[in-house]
Every structure is written in C-alpha cells, then in structure tokens.
C-alpha cells in the first residue's frame, strides 16, 4: 500500500489561486487537514470562503496551485465519492419538486449505474442516513414544506448516505433551530470518531470556539491558520475582518 503514506492527510491544498474572468477571488491559499479534524473557515462576505469550497469540490478550476485529496487527484476523489458538500440554504431552490428521500438518494448517484437505479445497499444507506438525522417521519415530504433546520438535516443526510470521508459544510448553523443545532453538534462528534474530516464555514465565532480544532482565517488569501486556541486571537480576527474589533464579533469576554 503505497498510498498509506499519503493518507495521513485528507486535504492538501497548496498555493491555490482562483480567478473569475481575470478577477482574483483567492490566491496562494494553503490548507492541510488530517482525519478526524474539524476546521472552521472564517472570513468576511466575499473573502473567498465559497470560492475555497468551489475549488475543493472541483466546481471551479484553480488557475494555479495543487489540490490533493487522500494523496490523489481531485478527479479520482470525485469518482471515489470522497468529498461531500452540504450547501448553504440560500444556494438551493427550495421549491424544487423533490422530497427528502429523493435528495438523500442523490448522495448515492455517484456510485450507481448510469440509469441511477438504486440497489438494496443504496436503499439501506438512504434509510440509515435519514434515521441519523431524525427525519424518518418526513421521508416523503417535499423539501419546500420543511423548515430551514429540517432542510439542513436533509442535506447532511445526503452527505452521510454518500459515505464521504471529507465533509464541506457551508454555514451549517445559519438559520437552524436549536434542535437541529444540537443534532449537528452530536453528529460532528460522531464524524470525528469515524475519522471524517470536516471543513465548515461560519459567521458565528462561538461555534468556532465550540467545534473547531483548527481555524483558517481568510481574506482573499490565508491570514492565519492553525490550532483554534493559538490562531483565533484578537489581532488575527481584526485583520481578517478588515479592522473591525473582535469585541463586536465575539462579545466582551474575549
């Protein structure tokens, strides 16, 4: 197993740059994450958080740099169902005519045959995933009739059904109820124990403190990266947010 050496790292992003028609959205960004690590991606609106996710999912091409997932190329990571993306609520058409079961089944598409006919194992994976996010009673509910939290859990279930080892979560805590927040935080502990790697973007500094082992502060490029306790300082946060004092963002106790 030659690959074993590389598998120490799940995500290796080296000096990645992304530009949209010549406009630089992200430059010289680096990130290294191992199994069982939870990393918070923090930055202002337009700082390149979504671009970072887009680059890691292969949704945009990087103009420079290198991305390796489990020591392999992004393409083979996609084929292997390694990465799951949990979208922000606003990124999804909530009126689309699909129900919870349909959405979670989409997590299995990549490992099905060309006609996407579910096998017994796919049905079981979907069933288990829906159970884990506590939506069994809502299996056949159209996503348009769900609450924001339930919709968030539906997309989490899709990532679980996909059996991905890397989870990218865009604002997992925005617009969710307390019950969902509690369920997500329990899932995070389970994911960590299963050795999954999580990269999540958030606006809420308290969540970073609570859940993230590591934090990546970005403002078009990496401002600071490391252990949350070391990196998540007043100075770093202030420079990430363009001079706004963290007191405003964090509350007086910091």
């Amino acid at each position, binding site marked *: 197993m030659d690959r074993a050496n590389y598998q120490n790292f799940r995500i290796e992003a080296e000096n990645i740059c992304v530009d949209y028609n010549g406009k630089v959205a992200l430059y010289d960004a680096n990130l290294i994450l191992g199994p069982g690590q939870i990393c918070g991606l923090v930055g202002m609106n337009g700082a390149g958080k979504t671009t970072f996710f887009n680059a890691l999912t292969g*949704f945009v091409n990087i103009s420079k740099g290198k991305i390796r997932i489990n020591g392999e190329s992004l393409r083979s990571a996609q084929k292997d169902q390694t990465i799951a993306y949990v979208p922000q609520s606003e990124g999804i058409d909530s009126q689309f*005519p699909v129900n919870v079961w349909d959405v979670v089944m989409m997590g299995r*598409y990549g490992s099905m045959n060309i006609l996407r006919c579910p096998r017994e194992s796919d049905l079981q994976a979907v069933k288990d995933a829906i159970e884990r996010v506590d939506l069994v009673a809502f299996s056949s509910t159209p996503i348009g009739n769900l609450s924001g939290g339930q919709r968030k859990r539906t997309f989490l279930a899709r990532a679980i059904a996909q059996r991905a080892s890397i989870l990218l979560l865009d604002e997992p805590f925005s617009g969710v109820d307390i019950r969902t927040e509690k369920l997500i935080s329990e899932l995070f502990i389970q994911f960590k124990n299963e050795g999954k790697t999580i990269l999540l973007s958030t606006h809420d500094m308290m969540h970073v403190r609570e859940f993230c082992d590591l934090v990546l502060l970005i403002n078009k490029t990496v401002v600071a990266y490391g252990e949350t306790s070391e990196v998540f300082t007043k100075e770093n946060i202030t420079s990430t947010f363009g001079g706004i004092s963290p007191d405003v963002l964090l509350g007086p106790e910091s």
Partner: protein
Amino acid sequence: MEPFFFSSINTFVTDPLTHNFMRKALLMSSLVAAVCGFLSSYLTLKGWALMGDAVSHSVMPGVVVAYALGLPFSLGAFVFGVGSVALIGFVKQKSRVKEDTVIGLVFTAFFALGIVLISKIKSNIDLHSILFGSPLGISISDVRQTVIISLLVVILLSVFRKDLMLYCFDPRHAKTVGINVIFLHYLLLTCLSLAAVVGLQTVGIILVVAMLITPGATAYLLTDQFDIMTIISVCSAIISSIIGIYFSFWFDLETGGSIVLAQTFIFLLAFLFAPRYGILKFKRIFFINNNG
C-alpha cells in the same frame, strides 16, 4: 335533443379522423408535444425559459442553410442552436452587457439572419410554414425525420433523466460525486435544439417556445414530485395538441396558435384550481396533496 347532442359530439370527434392528413397531423403533433413536454419540465426547473426562446429562434438560419445544402434540418438546427448559446456565453463574458440583453441581442440577430437567408436562397421553403408551422401539411420525409429525432430525444432524456434532474437541482453536488456536468449541460442544449426543430413543424418557430415552457409550468403547479411533474407535463402537452388541432379543423383557425392557446388554457386552469399552488387554494376542499 339528447340523441342529437350525442351524435354531434360523435361527429365532432370522428369526422376529422376520416381525413388522412388529420390523422397524420394528430399523431405527429402528439409526438412533438410529448418530446417538448418532457423537456419542458427540465427547462422550467433549470430556469431556462429565456434560453429556450433563444435557441428555438436561433435554429432558423440553420434550418435554411441545411435545406440549401441538402443536409438534414436537424443538423443545421443543432449547429446554430448550440452556436447561439456559445456566442451568448462569449459576449456575456467579454463585455459588460447583462445576460438577458445578450440573449435578446443574439437570438434576434440569428432569427433575422434566417429570414434574410430565406428571401435570398431561392428554394421552396415556405416562410409562412416555418414561422407558423404546418402540421396539416407534413410530408413523408418530414414524418420520418420527426419520428427519428423525437425518439432520439426521448431516449436521451430517459437515460439521463435522474442526472439531468440532479444537474438542474444542485450542479455542485453532481460535480462533487463525479458526474460530468459539462456533458449534461450540452446534452440539455442538444435536446433543446432538436426539440425546437421538431416543434417548429407543428407550431412554427415563433410559438415553439410555448411548447417548451407552458406544459412544464402547468405541471409545476400541480405536483411536488419530479416524476409526476414530467408525466403531467407530457400529458398536458399531448392533450393540448389534440384539442388545438380539433378546434383548428372545425373553426378554421391557425393550427399552431390553437395548440398554444389550448396549452395556455390548461395552464390557467392549473393556475386557478391547482390543489396546493392554485390561487383559489382548493386543497382545503379536496384533500389532495402529495405530502406523505
């Protein structure tokens, strides 16, 4: 009174069927409607109504050029349909003009080019039948081509049914799990160009966009399940075609226009009376909903 009523209904339905051209028109239009209706649910959900308009108009010069060179209509239509979309993308990327403006600009230019070409190339292409359709005068070679293209589109859409649904719903997830979204994008565009060509014969180039939008919009008001939406879309398109052709036969109306008006009428019914999404909210009276 009653026997007369029934016999007149009977005549209304069966009389047109004694004519060969009417049987052919009904069959062809139903087939075309089914194809466009199938595609329509994807276009509605993807938000490609304007794109449908653009592509269906842009195929016109392709049809004329293909005719002049003796090539199949579908080939010319495909080249110009996909070409227009590529051009729209290029102009949008290279200039500060907004997308809807670019779409309007490109497709009207293509459409105008088609009209100019028809007037210049001496042929027996009938401008009127391209603009307004001529389902009552479809020739045998047209029938063959329509059937082949329709079957091709239906097979493609059926095979990639779920992938296309995922592509419309969440392209980033599709990409993340290794599905080729660029292929799906061009597949949808190809089907759109081909559907525009077959739709052109029934309702004409000006109204073909209605065939590509209205059935999907109607179905979208009636269900929250994708598969059922597709079925409703196809059925409403076929029913509209039949109604439209009968009305055009009995009241001497332009066939393409009648078909589209029949589609609009069904949409209006859904708009008013749809159980959950109709403005009259009938779900309180009839307990019909798809909520499990």
